[in-house]
């Protein structure tokens, strides 16, 4: 705590892992960014160098030859589930991404749109007569879970059961309880295995059926192992469900408290695509990507050593006033498609970005057609989880 510089870099102590009132993390991120161009944060055991300005963050994502995902989160280096494709780097990573990309490209995601729309309508119609709900638990997590199952060719009717297991795994992982996590993981893997078994017996079209493709794929003439396939499926679940829930939570909090913006998209649903990009910029929930430096190097004056942990500050970049005018404001038609970095950059950029965009767009369209006016229940106290942001609850009410 006494050190004021670390290898010449100014030191900060900001703790980004705490549960706080909503939006507090954005204030912390803004404050750190405006303190100094680079900071060394000593709030964790290993500490980390923080890249914070848009240009530095973009450049950081392009350092992938030397900065690898041996550390995935600057806040939790060295622990966590094995993940694929995240844990791979260089050529190996590209080869696996090549297999997966085609199922997450815009063209593939468009094939899911009819089902995504239908499922969304069903969930909204179920909630509508109630006049209120906890949006996080009753909608925002259920919807991506159902679509995840659909993506794997599994019945969405398994959603409820699957959700129980995935929530148990999330909470056990966050609480750092490996035994409870292992039990939850086993249920999920067993469930995946039934789908894999079915597809081994009755292969689908590998061009459109992801499970079949994973079973048939070859990397350097070798099939993926059973374990690798399990890890990939588990990764998609861990990377895709909590994030989408979180994005929806922030978007609906914003719309429930800004009538003028809600009215804009109710009046002109064609604005929703742009609104989604601007929401992603303004409310980045993965606010940092971690990397580990593989060899001594200078980066923009920082003296880096092998083993250093880097914080690539997505949250700071997305609200950097050097890049975006009035960065803390929601401006529906920011020029262009706005170059936010909410999905990261470089070779590890989010695999699910186009699916996430589709999900958010469909929800905003279908919900506002059916429930154009809603508010946050009086007295609700909104809090956000540190580490990777998500709202714990969001009680909404509307007239029926």
């Amino acid at each position, binding site marked *: 705590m006494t050190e004021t510089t670390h290898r010449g870099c100014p030191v900060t102590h900001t703790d980004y892992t705490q549960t706080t009132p909503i939006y507090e993390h954005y204030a912390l991120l803004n404050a750190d960014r405006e303190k100094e161009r680079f900071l060394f944060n000593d709030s964790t055991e290993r500490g980390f160098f923080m890249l914070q300005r848009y240009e530095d963050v*973009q450049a950081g994502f*392009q350092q992938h030859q030397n900065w690898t995902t041996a550390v995935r989160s600057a806040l939790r280096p060295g622990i966590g589930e094995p993940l694929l494709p995240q844990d791979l780097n260089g050529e190996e990573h590209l080869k696996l991404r*090549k297999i997966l*990309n*085609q199922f*997450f*490209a*815009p*063209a*593939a995601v468009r094939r899911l749109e009819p089902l995504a729309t239908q499922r969304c309508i069903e969930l909204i119609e179920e909630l509508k007569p109630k006049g209120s709900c906890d949006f996080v638990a009753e909608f925002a997590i259920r919807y991506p879970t159902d679509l995840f199952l659909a993506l794997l060719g599994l019945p969405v009717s398994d959603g409820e059961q699957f959700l129980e297991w995935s929530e148990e795994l999330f909470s056990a992982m966050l609480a750092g309880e490996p035994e409870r996590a292992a039990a939850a993981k086993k249920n999920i893997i067993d469930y995946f295995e039934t789908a894999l078994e079915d597809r081994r017996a009755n292969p689908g079209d590998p061009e459109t059926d992801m499970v079949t493709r994973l079973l048939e794929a070859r990397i350097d003439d070798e099939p993926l192992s059973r374990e690798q396939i399990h890890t990939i499926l588990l990764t998609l679940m861990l990377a895709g469900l909590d994030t989408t829930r979180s994005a929806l939570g922030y978007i609906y909090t914003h719309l429930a408290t800004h009538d003028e913006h809600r009215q804009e998209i109710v009046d002109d649903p064609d604005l929703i695509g742009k609104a989604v990009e601007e929401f992603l910029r303004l409310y980045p929930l993965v606010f940092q990507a971690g990397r580990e430096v593989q060899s001594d190097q200078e980066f923009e004056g920082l003296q880096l050593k092998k083993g250093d942990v880097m914080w690539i500050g997505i949250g700071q970049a997305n609200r950097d006033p050097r890049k975006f005018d009035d960065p803390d404001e929601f401006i529906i038609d920011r*020029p*262009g*498609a*706005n*170059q*936010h*970095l909410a*999905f990261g*950059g*470089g*070779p590890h*950029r989010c695999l699910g*970005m*186009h699916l996430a965009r589709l999900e958010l767009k469909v929800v905003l369209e279908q919900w506002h057609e059916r429930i154009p006016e809603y508010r946050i229940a009086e007295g609700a106290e909104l809090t956000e989880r540190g580490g990777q942001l998500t709202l714990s609850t969001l009680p909404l009410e509307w007239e029926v």
Partner: protein
Amino acid sequence: MFIEIDGAKCMGHGRCYAVSPDLLSDDDEGFVAERGTSWEVPADLLDQAHEATDACPEGAIVVTATAPADA
């Protein structure tokens, strides 16, 4: 005016072809199909070329007055 797309920088964010559908297209992995090439932009599509440049979060697209030397 010429447009040039850096094939090494393009990571498949898909913003460029979303804003410039008449100038750019997507391949089946989600990258811009024209990555790694450059060509002269028809005058009526110049606005789209600039929009594509402004949309790419990797800085992979540039619009220049002269043909890129090594293209």
